[in-house]
Structure formats: C-alpha cells, structure tokens
C-alpha cells in the first residue's frame, strides 16, 4: 500500500513516444501533417469512444445470454439459428428503445427524460471534479461516501434548523455542505501529511465512521425528522433552502455544478494552488526541492476535493431529497465519481461529458428495467468496463500509437513552411 504518490496518478494514456516516427523538428517542418491520422485514431477521444462501444457490446452480450427468451432459443440453436438472432435482436432493440425513451426523448414526454438524465449527472459532475483534484495531486480519494454524508448532514442541519431569508438560506446551506465535505476530507489529508498513512485505507475507514456516525446523529432530536421516530432520517429542509426548479424538472443544481467545473478549471490551470497540486502530483520529490510544502498541499488538495464532493451532497440534500436525508443519501456517487474522473481524464470538460454519459445510462436503465426486463445493475458493469479499458492503453493495443506531436506545433510548423 505504500506506493509513491506519483504512481497513484492515473496512468498516462499515451504510451511512450515512438522516437523513430515522431522525428526531429526538421522532419516536422518538412511534413507537418505526417502521422496526424495516428494522433486522431490513437488519441484520447477515439480511445474513449472505442472503450465505451466495447463496454456496451459486452454489456449487451451479458444481457442477451442471461435473458430467458434468448436462452430458450439456444436449446435448438443448430436447427434454427434464426430464432436466436431474432430473440437477441428484439431484446437489444427493446433495450435501446427503452434507453432512449428513458434518457433522451420520449414521444409522450418530449425531452423531459433528457432533463432527468441531467439530474442524474449533476452530483456526478461535482463529485467527479472532486476526484479529479485529488488525482491531479496523485491522491486517491475513495472517501467520497463519507464526505458526502458529512456534507449532507451539514446542509440538512442548516437547511432545516436555521431561519434565514430565502436566497441567503440556500447559499448558506450549500456552503455548509461544501464545508462539511472539505472538513471530513481535510482530516484525512492532515493525517496522511503528518503520519504518512495511506489515504486509501484512511478514506475507507472514514467512510465507515461517517456512515455509523451519521446513522447515530440522524436519530438524535437535533437532526431527526419528527415524522420518523426510531429511523435515521433527517428533518425536511425548509422551503427557503430548497434549490429552485428553473423549468420543468431542471433544477439549479446542474447550473451550479457547471459553474463548479469552471471554478475547477480556474483552480487547476490558473491558480498557484493548482500549480502546486499538479507539481506534487507529477513528482512530489521535485516539488519539495522546488520549495513547495508537500504536506500543506496534501491537506489543501484533500480539502478542495472534499469541497467539490460536498457540493454533490448539497444537490442531493437540497434538490433531490429535500424531505429529509437518510444514511443512503450518498447513493454510491462517491464511487461512481472515481469512474467519472478517470473517464474524463481529470479535465473539466471530460468530467462533464463522462458524468453526462453515466447520467444518461442511469436514467435510461430505469426504463430499460421496466420495458425490456433487463435489470439496471448491468449499468455499473458497463461503467466499470469503460474505465478499465480507458485506463489500460495497452489493452486497446490495436489502436495506433499517437506520435506525441501537438496539433499546435503542427500548425506552427505548417505556417513556417508556407
């Protein structure tokens, strides 16, 4: 478990540059667009798309071969193979149709399903950004569950028990969630910085501590709903702290997480803190030599990571479940966010797109289960496979290796030539 920090960053998707073909700058000047097709086919976008398609195919195969109707046709496959393909085809057709009506557009409800996909994606974006911060510093924050729980408790307390004017109340409640998540994560960062204990094991333990702690606290009069004696359920959030619906089921939450993505971009790419985080992530020893206080950066990174995850808790508490939180409020988002950040390559746009994809899958899987009879538990399998394929560049070895030359340099070289 004592891996060095640097090795905890997700592996660089690009394999080592092939020296022979990347060529010297002269070769670039002669033929600026040489090998560009390799960059496109071997690039991250194509790689991700191939991984997604591959995972979807495997998911479909699992669905086909576990389906009872299809299994029946397998019994006499060699006498009438057509039946098998008909049954499989109709199952896949049903599944795809159900996914689309559930996640994008349905003839009866218009684009309402797409809005619900955005709803599913909302906490994933926020938590994915949180994971991204940690990954950039070479930290692996599996503590999303605990951080969300603490954030949700804070938001629920402020939202239910404080009396504040309308807009201010919502802002304070959101900030409380952010603070809660940041605090819980910062404790782990502090312990890691001070003692060198591994953050993976610490965050797992803190998830459980938060789980039992919040289960206990939600049964105390300070937090417990009056309507659920004996159950761990929080008080309903006051109307002034509920996130408003902007139109037809599309809430403020999604706008907030988009703003958070902009903030993420600014923190990571423009601020000093972000520079330090990235420096520590690339090489902690070099960062230390350069005068960066690695311990402080560890604590700050975890705090920022937890703050984004706290925002995910805020949308869950103040938008999705305003009637009162339960210890299951995290809904596995902390773990899903790992896959979001990995698929999104820790970039803000990538994280939004990855969260959107998983949001679509989640929203679609609900109707898929009802209409095509495929249990929605297939979605985490597909999700996991996508990440596995994206994280293993060597697995998709049939894709060409990128040349490692930046498009910007190609354009510049082309200009010099002309």
């Amino acid at each position, binding site marked *: 478990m004592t891996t060095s920090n640097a090795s905890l960053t997700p592996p660089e998707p690009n394999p080592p540059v092939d020296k022979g073909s990347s060529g010297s700058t002269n070769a670039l000047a002669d033929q600026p667009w040489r090998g560009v097709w390799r960059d496109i086919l071997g690039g991250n976008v194509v790689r991700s798309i191939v991984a997604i398609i591959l995972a979807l195919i495997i998911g479909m195969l699992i669905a086909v071969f576990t389906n009872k109707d299809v299994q029946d046709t397998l019994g006499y496959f060699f006498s009438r193979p057509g039946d098998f393909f008909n049954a499989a085809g109709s199952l896949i057709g049903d599944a795809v149709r159900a996914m689309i009506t559930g996640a994008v557009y349905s003839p009866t409800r218009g684009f309402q399903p797409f809005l619900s996909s955005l709803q599913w994606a909302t906490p994933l974006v926020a938590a994915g950004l949180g994971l991204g911060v940690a990954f950039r510093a070479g930290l692996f924050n*599996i503590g999303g569950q605990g951080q969300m729980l603490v954030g949700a408790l804070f938001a629920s307390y402020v939202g239910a028990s404080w009396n504040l004017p309308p807009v201010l109340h919502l802002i304070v409640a959101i900030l409380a969630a952010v603070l809660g998540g940041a605090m819980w994560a910062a404790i782990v960062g502090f312990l890691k910085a001070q003692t060198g204990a591994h953050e993976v094991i610490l965050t797992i333990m803190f998830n*459980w*501590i938060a789980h*039992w702690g919040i289960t206990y606290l939600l049964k105390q009069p300070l937090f417990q709903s009056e309507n659920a004696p004996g159950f761990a359920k929080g008080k309903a959030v006051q109307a002034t702290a509920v996130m408003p619906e902007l139109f037809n089921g599309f809430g403020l939450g999604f706008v907030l997480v988009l703003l958070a993505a902009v903030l993420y971009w600014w923190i990571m790419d423009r601020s000093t803190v972000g520079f330090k985080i990235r420096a520590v992530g690339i090489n902690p020893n070099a960062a230390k030599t350069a005068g960066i206080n690695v311990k402080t950066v560890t604590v700050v990174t975890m705090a920022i990571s937890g703050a984004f995850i706290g925002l995910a808790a805020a949308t869950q508490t103040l938008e999705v479940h305003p009637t009162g939180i339960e210890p299951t409020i995290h809904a596995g988002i902390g773990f899903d966010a790992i*896959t979001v950040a990995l698929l999104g390559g820790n970039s803000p746009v990538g994280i939004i797109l990855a969260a959107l994809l998983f949001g679509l899958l989640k929203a679609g899987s609900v109707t898929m289960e009802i209409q095509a009879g495929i249990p929605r*538990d297939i*979605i*985490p399998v597909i*999700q996991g496979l996508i990440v*596995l394929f994206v994280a293993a560049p060597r697995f998709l070895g049939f894709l060409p290796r990128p040349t490692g030359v930046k498009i910007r340099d190609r354009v510049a070289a082309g200009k010099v030539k002309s």
Partner: protein
Amino acid sequence: MTTTVTPKTPATPESPETALAPRKWKTPILLGVFALVSLLIFSLRLDPSLTTRIDLNSRTVPIELPPLVLPSMLTNLILSTLMIAFAAYTAKLAYDRKKIPMWGIALFAALWVIALIVWVGAGANVPFVWLLTGTLAISTPLVFGSMAGLVSERAGVVNIAIEGQLLAGAFASALVSSMTGSWVAGILAALVAGVLVSVVLALFSITYWVEQVVVGVVINMIVIGLTSYLYSGLMASNRELYNSPDTYDAWPIPLLSSIPIIGPVFFSHSIITYLMFILVPLLTWALFNTRWGLRTRSVGEHPKAADTVGINVNRNRWFNVLLSGAIAGVGGSFYTLGSVGAFNQEVTSGQGYIALAALIFGRWHPVYATLAALLFGFASNFRTLATQVGANVPSELLSMVPYIVTVLAVIGFVGQSRGPAASGVPYIK
C-alpha cells in the same frame, strides 16, 4: 524583542542526551486515554448495585458450569486500576527509551475488552461462549480475505479487489451449490470464481500496468453490478433452482467439542472455519520458510533485485494474485453456504475492505492480520450483543470503534505499519 523572551529550549539536564533517539510517547498516551475511558465511563458511570452475569454454558456442552456473577463497578475499577498502572509503566519505558512489549499491549487490550463487556452487560446476562463462537464465525471470511490480500500484496500487487473476490465466491457457491445440491461443488465454484476475478486483476495490473488501486475499485464495482444483475435476472425468478444452496454442516469434533468453553468456541464449526485453522499457520510457515515465500517477499520488496537473480517477477505475481483469488473465493462461500443459506445483493457489504484494513492493521503478517480480523469480528458480534441486552450505549457508536482503532493503528500509534516496498508498482522491464 526576541532577546527579552526566555529561550524556547532552556538548558536542561537532558540536553547532552540530544544525540539519543527521541522518546516515543504515542503508545503510552494512547494507552492512557483508553485506561481513562475505562475508568471514567466503564467504571464510574455504573450503578454500584449492578452485577454482570457471565454465562459460560453452551447448548452443545453437556457439562453445566455455574455463571460468573461479577459486581460490575468493582470489577471495572480493579481492571481500570491495572490498566492505568500498565499505562504508567509504558510511560516509564518510553522515558527510558525502552521497547514496549507486544504481549503487554495485547494483555492491556484484553483487559479493556473485558471491562467493556462488563460495562455493557451490567445488570444483564452475557452469553460469553456465544460471543466468542460468533466472533470466530464472523471473522472467518475476513481472515480468508486478509490472507488473500496478504499473498497478493506480499508479491507487490495491491489487492483492493478482495471485496469483489469474496462476493464472486459467495455468488458462485450459492448458484452451483443450489444447482448441484452439494456444498463441495459450491466451494469449488467459489474457488474458480475468485480465480476468475483475479485473472482480471492480474491481467490489468501486472500485464497492462494499470494503477492497481483503480483496477481493484473498478473490479469491485463490476462484480457488485454483475452479481446483483444475475441475482435479479436469474436467481430471484427461480429461487428453488438457483438460490437455495446446500449449506455446510457444523462438524463438531468428537470429545474435543464437549470441553466447556473451549469446545464450542474452537471445535464445533463448519469445514470452512477448520480450513482457516489450517490456512493461517500454513501461510505463515510457507511465507517465511519456503522457496515460494522467499520469492514472493523478494518480488514484493525489490522486484529488480529478484529479477537479477533469475526470479520471474511477473510470473510469481500472476501466481500469487490467482492464489489470492482462490483463497478469497473459498472464504466468500461462507457468506452463502455458511450462514444465511442464500445469496443476496451485495451480501458481503464492504467486508472485503475490512479484510484489507485487517491486513494493514496486522502489518502484512498472517498471524497479526488474523488477530486484527478477529478483532473486527468481535466488534461486529459485540454490537449484536449490545443491542440484545439493551445497553445504554448506542450500537452505532460501538460500530465505529473498530474503524477508529484501525485509523489509530494506521497513523502509527501501534508502530508504523509499512507494507511491502514495491507494492502497487508494476514491474516494467
């Protein structure tokens, strides 16, 4: 200004000793805190008139023992005094820069746990034998999980996927045992399922160099999804055929099992617990006394050196990761064939992560890891007891204790927990 302030480090008699190692106060402080908790909460907050009745009988033992009736407050006061004395003794040892004996800490822990039992059981009946028997049963899959983590991590592959391996074992054993009507087939299926999960782990972490923690987390996600999917798609529709497994029988060992206390605790379990009794000593011996063990440890500590002397690093890692899957798979069968008798979604409920914690707590040593797993099992069983006797302490707070203890262990209160040096790093020639 600064000159008027007294120097921060006044010259003390100790100053010539600064060349010596710094004194380590962590353990005495921790023991002191625990002793104070025992004194202030377990002892002084009790009603002096209460007694704790400790029942030493078990249904399987023909001999009837009289229950132990202890005056709760007095017992705990005595225990607390002993603990405070030991904490003071460790402080003295720390001052003299002497090593604090491990057995002493173990004894302290035992006293503290007894005080806890006496406190929770004040005014009630504590089924002591049940408490220990249950502990061993609950710990069994945890021990298997820890041993799975051990063989993998000692070879340098971080195994977060223990949860997935256990769950795959639990699922496969329930399915196959139901379909064949034989628990032996169930165990074999669990073994195969664990190995299959390991193939994915090994392939992606050893051969494709993917970050091992990421692979582990993702594998857990996939296995949870897949087993839940198959459960709702397959098992739930036809319980009779797919989810009513043949469970293990308890095999009380003749004679030995009728010894009071010891008999039911150690000698009337199912085959899987006996397997555990064999597995742990076997692994301890193999790890430190065989060629496989030496190779495994060298590959985990310094793969390059191992490679230089002709050990095939990645082959050893592959073998160990597959072995890890086999061990965890067999352990996972306990969740279905050993207890409930049916598979349920996420039946392992995060126990794989606890097994991992036990491994780290136990400093990657088979025996210590087993003890740590037993501690988690005890905590879990004790929570049940506390709920049953209606203790005045909420069961949620008791549930937090093992995790807090693990955190304390990991941050170095019980000595630094340092894993194999090359664990988590893919070996790339």
